[in-house]
């Protein structure tokens, strides 16, 4: 079950993991982007942690607030993408104060749809979609979430980017893990840990 407290814990955990991986995210982005992903994600999740001290009546309310905060603090492409994911997941959670695995999965699927719509992207383009979509596809409660996510992140290394700034490098984008895929795995791991 994911409770409001558990969701908050997941977000705090995501923040500390992003902080720990800030340089890695930025270095990956330097290789195939513009080198600010770690900095932007860290700024955004620091702001998210600051809103967690407030009281929330439902998972939906918390998810929406997290999304709006990310949208207004991250900037770049990651801001609207992560922001839209949490904002669009919010109505799925609705007034619920706790969510079972099935509901969390549905909410994250809404989030994935929002990322795809906002970024006009599909799976296979070497973006964060390559973690979100295949991770949820056929996911069951008994899966090893962490290893599935790690596997998907590593899969992006061999892909050629056709969307986002990495696409400017064409074939040269192969051989580097997509930074958005890595940050997505950090966020999703943190959430799934609290669903157990």
């Amino acid at each position, binding site marked *: 079950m994911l409770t409001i407290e558990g969701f908050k814990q997941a977000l705090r955990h995501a923040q500390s993991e992003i902080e720990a991986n800030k340089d890695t995210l930025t270095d990956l982005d330097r290789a195939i982007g*513009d080198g*600010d992903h770690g900095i932007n994600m860290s700024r955004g999740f620091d702001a998210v942690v600051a809103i967690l001290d407030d009281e929330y009546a439902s998972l939906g309310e918390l998810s929406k607030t997290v999304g709006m905060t990310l*949208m207004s603090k991250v900037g770049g*492409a990651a*801001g609207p993408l992560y922001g839209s994911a949490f904002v669009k997941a919010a109505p799925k959670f609705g007034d619920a104060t706790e969510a079972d695995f099935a509901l969390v999965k549905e909410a994250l699927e809404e989030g994935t749809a929002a990322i795809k719509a906002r970024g006009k992207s599909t799976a296979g383009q070497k973006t964060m979609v390559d973690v979100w979509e295949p991770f949820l596809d056929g996911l069951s409660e008994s899966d090893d979430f962490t290893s599935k996510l790690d596997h998907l992140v590593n899969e992006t290394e061999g892909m050629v980017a056709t969307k986002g700034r990495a696409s*400017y490098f*064409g074939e040269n984008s192969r051989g580097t893990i997509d930074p958005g895929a890595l940050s997505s795995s950090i966020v999703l791991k943190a959430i799934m840990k609290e669903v157990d």
Partner: protein
Amino acid sequence: MKKLIGEASELVSQMVEGMVHAHPELYGRVEGVNVICRADGAKSGKVGLVSGGGSGHEPAHAGYVGDGMLDAAVCGEVFTSPTPDMVLEGIKAADGGNGVLLVVKNYAGDVMNFELAGELADAEGIKVDHVVVADDVAIANKEDRRGVAGTVFVHKIAGAAAASGKSLEEVKALAEKVASHVRSMGMAVEPCYMPVSGKPGFDLNEEEMEIGIGIHGERGVERKPTTDVDSIVDDLLEHLTKEVEPGKVAVMVNGMGGTPLSELYVTYHFVAKKLEAAGYTLKRKYVGNYMTSLEMHGFSITLLPLDDELTSYLDAPSAALGFKI
């Protein structure tokens, strides 16, 4: 890398503060946000023109705020698109009641954040439209092309059209006319350094240069051995002249921030000679720093085919510090 800055996280806000303090007759600041607007506020009845993006491109974009050009510039973190709520503040500051046009460079983040802001403004009853500039010929696929220095011509011509009293639809049509014809390409011999991380956008050894760079410190599409500027100009013009027919053009040789003016004029000397030999008439020429990438050492060339309409808007008065006429 040494930088002349205070706290890196305060760079943009301190820059904005400095600009407004230095030019109070020209600039105002939307309270609490890194948005520069006109000192005298939105002009009633005039179509508002808003641009912006990451910072680090100075004089873009605040340098183009002023009578005859932009009404507001939204200043994101260095090389990071501003957020939708910031862009919304820019739209509000520019709204004179007759609609607002957003000039957006074709980067995923900019397009998404400006689109979101447009939706928010729409919900508040402000008529907003946008034009996306994608002038960088270094990218083969036209849809993926980045918006670079050619954006300055869009600011100038759309700004002059708005100042002359044109409607939102007319200003947008002109902006699109410029955006669809303007072409640019850039290169660098030295990278720029991100203020927060202190790291270079790319690592380049003494004998290498990047061809086909964007304006966010990212690598070019091709890494080559360095050569003289005469040959580099040949390389860039080969791409540009494939897409711009010989005829009357405006040409811009734009510095990337760390290029001495002497080198920009040397570059321009070769650009002009080669273009004229190839049958181009250089009706208007611009040499200087218009759309930079922090301290990057390099340049870009922009060509805009000119007719009488575009020429007259290009020549119309502008009070903007970065494009004073």
